[in-house]
């Protein structure tokens, strides 16, 4: 198998759309509508991704080898229409991990600067 020569850090920082799609696919393959629902749930409805943004991002992520097409089959929970499924590649998973670590370190800095202090009566955490 030929491994891509690209490294995950070339993609950082990820755009919110790409990060959310990768995150939605982290626990298994999904079809387009499944990704959209997962993103909406993960962000508590703050990120509403339309079909244009979703498939524009999917197209670019396929080109960048961050995701790959799985197969086409019907979703037993929905209807009998066949749907194309997408899953993370190794590169996509590594890019997601690096972006999550980058964001986590930003949160740590925010904590160190007592950004969250006003949210808790006890002061800094």
């Amino acid at each position, binding site marked *: 198998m030929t491994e891509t020569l690209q490294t995950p850090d070339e993609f950082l920082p990820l755009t919110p759309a790409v990060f959310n799609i990768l995150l939605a696919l982290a626990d298994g393959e999904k079809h387009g509508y499944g990704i959209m629902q997962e993103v909406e749930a993960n962000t508590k409805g703050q990120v509403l991704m339309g079909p244009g943004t979703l498939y524009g991002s999917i*197209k670019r992520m396929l080109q960048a080898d961050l995701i790959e097409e799985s197969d086409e089959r019907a979703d037993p929970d929905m209807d009998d229409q066949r749907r194309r499924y997408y899953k993370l590649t190794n590169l996509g998973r590594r890019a997601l991990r690096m972006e999550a670590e980058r964001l986590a370190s930003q949160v740590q800095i925010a904590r160190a600067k007592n950004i969250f202090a006003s949210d808790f009566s006890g002061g800094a955490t």
Partner: protein
Amino acid sequence: MISRPAELPIIALSVKVYQVLLIAYPAKFQQEYGSEMTQVFQDCCLRTFRQGGTNGMLKLWTVTLLDLVQSVVSEHTQKEIHMKKEMKPEDIRKAGWSLMLGAVAFVFGMYWETSVWDLWIIGFPLLLLSVPMMAFGLRGLQARYGEAVGRFGKNILQFGAVLGPVTTLVGFIGGWVGLFVLIYTGPAILLTCLTIFGIAALLKKPYLNWKALTVFAGIWYPVFFINVLITRMMNGRWPVVSFEIADLVGIMMIPCIAMIALGYILKSHVPQETATV
């Protein structure tokens, strides 16, 4: 119990309209993802209608139209990166013809649609047809002269060639909910962008022997349209627009001839190096 999507008229109609709007995307993208996007939109419609009824559908359409405009511009910009490879000399020649025919269709469509009652039935479709034709002409100008005029000039033509037809299409589809003015806004956006491109061409590197031709071809309609908008704001209602035959000959034909000349120059001066893939 909610019936299947095809049995709900509001969902079936929404899906049909969305399918029509997908033509605004580049053909390759539409072929690759159009059916999946329609399927996802249908799923969204079904869920939204179950949860929010007709009000929910209105909200969904607002979000979807915003997403559509944003992603259409984005996809065309992505496509523009490969423009030089994709726009072959014969396509640029076709764009020249398209600009010429689009100019004629626009002027006569506008005249017949607004001023000759018997010919409204011909004028209106001509007017609608003229917008994508002129947009294709703008893509040809972009491919042929974009490099010489610079990044701003290229982008403004790209913007006009995409947003002009999309705006007109949204106006046509949304006419029944009062968006009819967007039909006439589309060509105003397109021709404003052509005018700005013409000014950029004057300021950067002149690319034609007749340097002011592009500005001259593009400026009349946006000025006229702004005048109509100002009248609307001052009087609180849309003015009745009607042209006399003298207006057709004296005001509308001159920029039309300028645009025909621009299209002729475009189709006649296609360098071979543009053809290299």
